[in-house]
């Protein structure tokens, strides 16, 4: 008995010793990188970049954590609060102000060489600049556009709409088709507010007025939301939009049940994979008083708490090489953020991607303001109340504007 215990102890001691010996003789520098998951391709792509980088830099280990978008902000919040923040992370540019104002984000101007800086398209660099300091690099960009099902349009004898009046008449014609919803309207969860901005901007309104107060209590905003509400009431959308997330609406489009949706370029690879026979066309948003699209960027941010900024930056520069950017943008269906990739023929010859890229000259970006998520939630609540008929459009918008001004202390 005693003998076997001793033997076991000796064996475990040996095991511990071997584990020690197994660790590398020299200390590898570890760079922790939190990656937002755009699709199932995102994780493997970044692992591939990291592996290629480690081959060239054997003394650096890139530790990749793939986190879904829905939980990313929560994950980063708990990591930072617990003192376990990563060294670099992909974040939504709309959160960057919060990170910058709390001193979490490291300004990268001192790392950014002029040559490296010149590889980026200025339009996409701009949202990451706060108070004159570059707080991160654009890592992904998309512009939104309208997708129409051309087969349904032909069947209904309608033409693709260029402005909101045509949009409405086209919707009426589409409604006459059996088993078809004219317009897919999102009313639930993430980006319900974005679906409203498309209408808001093209009607000439804006998220914030020139004086920095909320733009929801303007006639343009009222016009934008009344149009949606009217279409819901007249059965020109799918029934009960408040039960439809972005994905639900897109799924209806993929199934050929919806004539028109507002969407992002990432839907194109999905359609090609899941509904290859669907006939569709990418068009600009219907015009009202203005032409507009929603430009969305995500930012690669360096944490000020990082102890390995130099190594992290080395990896960042590596990951922005053209070959990697091409692979990333094509794989995920993004618009390019670097000039060299944008110059590729693919972005002008491919009708789908060109359709989305066409909006870039007049793209609007979400304002970089603090407490963005809370403000967005206030808007979504007001929109849902309007869509459900729980509140009158003008009253709900005014109340939401007042709440937003309070959050922003304006």
């Amino acid at each position, binding site marked *: 008995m005693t003998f076997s215990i001793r033997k076991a102890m000796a064996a475990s001691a040996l095991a511990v010793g071997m584990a020690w010996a197994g660790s590398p003789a020299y200390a590898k520098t570890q760079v922790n990188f939190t990656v937002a998951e755009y699709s199932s391709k995102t994780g493997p792509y970044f692992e591939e970049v990291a592996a290629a980088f480690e081959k060239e830099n054997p003394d650096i280990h890139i530790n990749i954590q793939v986190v879904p978008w829905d939980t990313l902000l929560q994950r980063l*919040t708990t990591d930072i609060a617990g003192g376990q923040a990563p060294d670099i992370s992909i974040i939504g540019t709309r959160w960057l102000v919060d990170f910058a104002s709390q001193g979490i984000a490291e300004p990268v101007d001192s790392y950014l060489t002029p040559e490296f800086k010149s590889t980026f398209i200025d339009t996409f660099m701009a949202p990451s600049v706060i108070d004159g300091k570059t707080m991160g690099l654009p890592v992904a960009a998309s512009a939104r556009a309208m997708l129409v099902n051309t087969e349904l349009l032909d069947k209904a004898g309608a033409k693709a709409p260029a402005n909101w009046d045509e949009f409405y008449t086209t919707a009426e014609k589409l409604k006459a088709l059996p088993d078809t919803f004219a317009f897919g309207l999102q009313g639930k969860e993430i980006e319900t507010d974005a679906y409203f901005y498309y209408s808001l901007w093209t009607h000439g309104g804006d998220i914030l007025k020139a004086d920095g107060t909320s733009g929801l209590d303007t006639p343009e905003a009222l016009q934008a939301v009344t149009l949606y509400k009217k279409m819901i009431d007249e059965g020109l959308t799918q029934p009960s939009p408040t039960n439809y997330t972005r994905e639900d609406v897109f799924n209806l489009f993929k199934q050929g049940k919806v004539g028109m949706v507002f969407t992002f370029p990432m839907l194109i690879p999905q359609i090609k994979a899941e509904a290859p026979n669907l006939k569709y066309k990418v068009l600009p948003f219907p015009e009202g008083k203005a032409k507009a699209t929603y430009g969305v960027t995500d930012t690669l941010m360096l944490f000020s708490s990082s102890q390995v900024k130099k190594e992290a930056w080395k990896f960042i520069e590596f990951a922005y090489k053209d070959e990697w950017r091409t692979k990333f943008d094509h794989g995920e269906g993004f618009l390019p953020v670097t000039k060299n990739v944008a110059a590729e023929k693919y972005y002008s010859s491919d009708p789908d991607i060109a359709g989305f890229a066409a909006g870039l000259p007049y793209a609007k970006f979400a304002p970089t303001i603090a407490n963005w998520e809370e403000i967005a939630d206030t808007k979504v609540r007001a929109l849902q109340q309007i869509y459900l008929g729980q509140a009158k459009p003008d009253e709900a918008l005014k109340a939401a504007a007042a709440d937003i001004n309070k959050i922003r202390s304006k």
Partner: protein
Amino acid sequence: MKSRTRIPTTPLLMILPSFLLAMSIIGYPILDLAWTSMQEVSRFGKMMGFIGLANFAEVFRDPLFYSSLVRTLIWTVAVVGGTLIISLPIAIMLNDDFYGRGLARVIVMLPWAISLTMTAVLWRWSLNGRAGLINATLMDFHIITEPIEWLATAPLAFTVEILVGILVSIPFTTTIFLGGLSSLPQDSYEAAVVDGAKPWELFRYITLPLMKPFINIAIVLNVIYVFNSLPIIWVMTEGGPANGTDILVTYLYKLAFRFGQLGKASAISLIMFFVLFVFTIAYVLMVMRQEHDSTAEEVKNDA
């Protein structure tokens, strides 16, 4: 025998280590929470300084807090009540000896093995208006002609969520009841049957009174679990549409991890803790008094 007033130190010393361990595990997070709730907390959890009860004042000014509180009470009462009403007959049925009882027990317990989040995701898909299995089935059976958008409006969505809440609470509650039923003395039943008691009378005058302690424990534990339960509502509606299905814990989750108001969220969390604490103490006291009364009555009868 020694002096009566002397406190026996040895037993106290012996439970001291585990008492301290329990206190540090349970007590530390609560103290930390209380401390956080009185701080100004930055977007990312840094303490910016003591602000007293300002977070609580903000919570009590917030209309969404009150509507979530009311909804939490409805949610808890409905889910726990529904669970008890359904679980007791199930447990009684499973306690009877019948062919395939083992299989039936496994089937009832099975949902317990699946994570709550997964169950909620499954229901979210099944309840989808156009692509969901529920609508498809109902339409195939010609029960409905048009698909129902189950989660589109708050009242219907909340009702559905309560039903799912009941469904996932049944296995645990049934287990408690089954344990209770198998420990009931058989001779009282035999005596009652000899006296000509009908099945309903057996249930009403023997099963129910003897099961009381088990029902009580099922109520307390279920109230605690359900009051704090996030996954079902969060996964199915995220408290929407228009905050119409928010209960305190989903509202708190939004405040903490979406809006970064960790101070206010800690305050709500502490309020929730006190609500549960007061409920549990009050309930236990009530049960103890009842027991005391009934034993007193028995003593009187004996005399």
